C-alpha cells in the first residue's frame, strides 16, 4: 500500500478541438503532450516515461514515442478502455516511486467524429467472448441501458433522477466555451428527448467528439522545483469486473474495489472529498459510480443526484464542472483523461470562476472503461492540493 505524495501531476492539458477535420490522431496526441509539458514548465527532453492506451496509433507506445521524438526508459500501454488514463496515473506513481522514471507523460487523442468510425472495434475471432455478444446487436448504448434497467428494477431509480445528472453537467457546461453542448437543459428536456435504448434517452448519452489530453506526472523532487501548481497524487486504485462466469450482477461496477484502495492509500474518506469528476459515458454510469465510490448507499443514487445536488454552488457534491462527457467532450470515446484534467484545475483553483469549488482541497477522479454490462476496468484517483 502506497502513501500520498509519491508523485505529483505537474502538467495537464485538454485539447480544445472537438472536431478534428484535418488533424491526425498522432498529431492530437503530440499537441496534447506539448500543452501538458508547457503547463508543467518542462520540455520533451525531460520525459523519461511514456504511457498510452489503445487510442494511440501503432504498437503499444512505440509509434507515438517515435513520432514525438522521445527517448524513454519506461513504457506502459495498459488499456482498460476509457478508464485507462487513471490506471496510467497509478502506474506512473509506482514507476516513479520505484525509480524507473521521473517525468511520466500520459497522452490521449482521437477523432471518432472526424473519422466517422463506429466506436466498437472489431476484436477478431480469437477474442473468446465477443462471438456471444455481437450477433445480438450489442452496442454501447444498449449495453449500458441494461444496467440502468436493472437498477430501476431493484431500486426504483427513475428517468427523472437520471436526468438530474445531465442537468448538472449542462449547468457547468454553459461556462465552458469549448463544450460541445453549452445550453442548460431541464429534467423535462432530458426525459422528453428521443428514447435511444430503454430507459436511456438521447440526453442520457454523452457526446461524440474528437480531441485529446495529456498529463505530466513527476517525482516529488522535480515537483519541488516546479512550484505549488503541482497537484499531489493522494491515492489510486484499479479493478476489473466481468460477466463473472455467467453470474451476472449489473447493479455495481469495479469501483467497489478501486475506490477503497484509493481512499486507503490517501488516508481519506468520501466525506473529505470536495468535488468529483466521474466518467459519464451515460447518466447511469455516474449514478452507479457514486454509489460504488461510497458517496451514498447502494440504491440511493437516484435520490442523491436529484435536486441539483451535483451542481457546483448549489449541491453538496459538485461533479464534472467542465460539463463532462455529457456536454463538454468525449475524445476517442474515452473519458477518464478529461476527468483528471478538470480535477487538476479544481485543486489548483484554476477552474472557471462560475464552477470553481471554494477552497477545493481534495478531488476524486473516477473512470469506468469498457462496457458496463459485460467487462469493465475501473480506476479511481484522489488528488490533493499541493499543500494537502
Amino acid at each position: 500500500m502506497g502513501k500520498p505524495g509519491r508523485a505529483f501531476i505537474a502538467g495537464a492539458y485538454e485539447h480544445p478541438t472537438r472536431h478534428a477535420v484535418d488533424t491526425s490522431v498522432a498529431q492530437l496526441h503530440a499537441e496534447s503532450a506539448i500543452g501538458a509539458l508547457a503547463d508543467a514548465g518542462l520540455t520533451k527532453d525531460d520525459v523519461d516515461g511514456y504511457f498510452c492506451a489503445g487510442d494511440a496509433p501503432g504498437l503499444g507506445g512505440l509509434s507515438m514515442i517515435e513520432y514525438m521524438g522521445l527517448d524513454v526508459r519506461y513504457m506502459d500501454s495498459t488499456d482498460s478502455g476509457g478508464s485507462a488514463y487513471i490506471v496510467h496515473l497509478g502506474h506512473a506513481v509506482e514507476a516513479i516511486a520505484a525509480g524507473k522514471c521521473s517525468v511520466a507523460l500520459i497522452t490521449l487523442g482521437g477523432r471518432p467524429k472526424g473519422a466517422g468510425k463506429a466506436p466498437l472495434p472489431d476484436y477478431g475471432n480469437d477474442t473468446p467472448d465477443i462471438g456471444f455478444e455481437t450477433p445480438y446487436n450489442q452496442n454501447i448504448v444498449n449495453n449500458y441501458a441494461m444496467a440502468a434497467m436493472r437498477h430501476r428494477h431493484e431500486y426504483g431509480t427513475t428517468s427523472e433522477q437520471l436526468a438530474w445528472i445531465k442537468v448538472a453537467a449542462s449547468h457547468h457546461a454553459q461556462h465552458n466555451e469549448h463544450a460541445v453542448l453549452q445550453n442548460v437543459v431541464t429534467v423535462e428536456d432530458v426525459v422528453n428527448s428521443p428514447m435511444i435504448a430503454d430507459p436511456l434517452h438521447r440526453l442520457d448519452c454523452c457526446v461524440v467528439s474528437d480531441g485529446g489530453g495529456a498529463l505530466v506526472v513527476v517525482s516529488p523532487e522535480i515537483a519541488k522545483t516546479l512550484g505549488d501548481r503541482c497537484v499531489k497524487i493522494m491515492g489510486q486504485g484499479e479493478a476489473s469486473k466481468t460477466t463473472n462466469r455467467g453470474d451476472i450482477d449489473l447493479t455495481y461496477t469495479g469501483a467497489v474495489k478501486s475506490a477503497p484502495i484509493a481512499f486507503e492509500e490517501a488516508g481519506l474518506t468520501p466525506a473529505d472529498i470536495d468535488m468529483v469528476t466521474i466518467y459519464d459515458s451515460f447518466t447511469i454510469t455516474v449514478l452507479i459510480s457514486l454509489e460504488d465510490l461510497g458517496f451514498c448507499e447502494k440504491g440511493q443514487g437516484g435520490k442523491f443526484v436529484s435536486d441539483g445536488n451535483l451542481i457546483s454552488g448549489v449541491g453538496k457534491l459538485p461533479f464534472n464542472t467542465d460539463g463532462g462527457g455529457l456536454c463538454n467532450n468525449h475524445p476517442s470515446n474515452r473519458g477518464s483523461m478529461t476527468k483528471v484534467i478538470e480535477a487538476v484545475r479544481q485543486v489548483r483553483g484554476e477552474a472557471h470562476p462560475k464552477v470553481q469549488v471554494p477552497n477545493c482541497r481534495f478531488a476524486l477522479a473516477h473512470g469506468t472503461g469498457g462496457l458496463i454490462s459485460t467487462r469493465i476496468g475501473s480506476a479511481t484517483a484522489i488528488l490533493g492540493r499541493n499543500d494537502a
Partner: protein
Amino acid sequence: MTTEAGQEVHPHYPKPAINVETQPFWDGAAEGKLLLKRCGDCDKTHYYPRNICPHCFSANTEWFETAGKGRIYSFSVMRRAPVPYVIAFVTLEEGPSMMTNIVDCDFDAVAIDQEVKLTFREAEGGIALPVFTPV
C-alpha cells in the same frame, strides 16, 4: 414486428466470431440445441462456454444440452435502429445468464423476471443464433 404484407422483419444479426474452441456451441445451435459447458471436476456451469473451467481451471469440461428455459434478468429495447429489437440477459434454469435477444413479442410488454424459452434466428452466414421468446 411485421410488414403490411404480414411478413416478419428481423434486424440484421451479425455473424458471430467463431473459433476452434467455440465451434461446438454453434454446431449445437445448428441442430436446435443450446449447449453449455459444465466442469467434470468442480461440477459448476459457466457462460460463455470455455474449454478451461473459469471456476477451478480444470480442463475437464463437457458440453451438455440445456432445457432452453429461463427468465429475463435485464433488457433494453433498442429503439434507435433500422428495425428495433430487444437485447437482454436471460438467466437460464441451469444457472448462468447469457446475452441474447427477445423476439416474437410485444416489445412494450417485455419485463424483468419474465419467463422465456429458446428459439432461433439466422445470423449472417447462415449461422443459427439462440434467442428467446416469452413463454
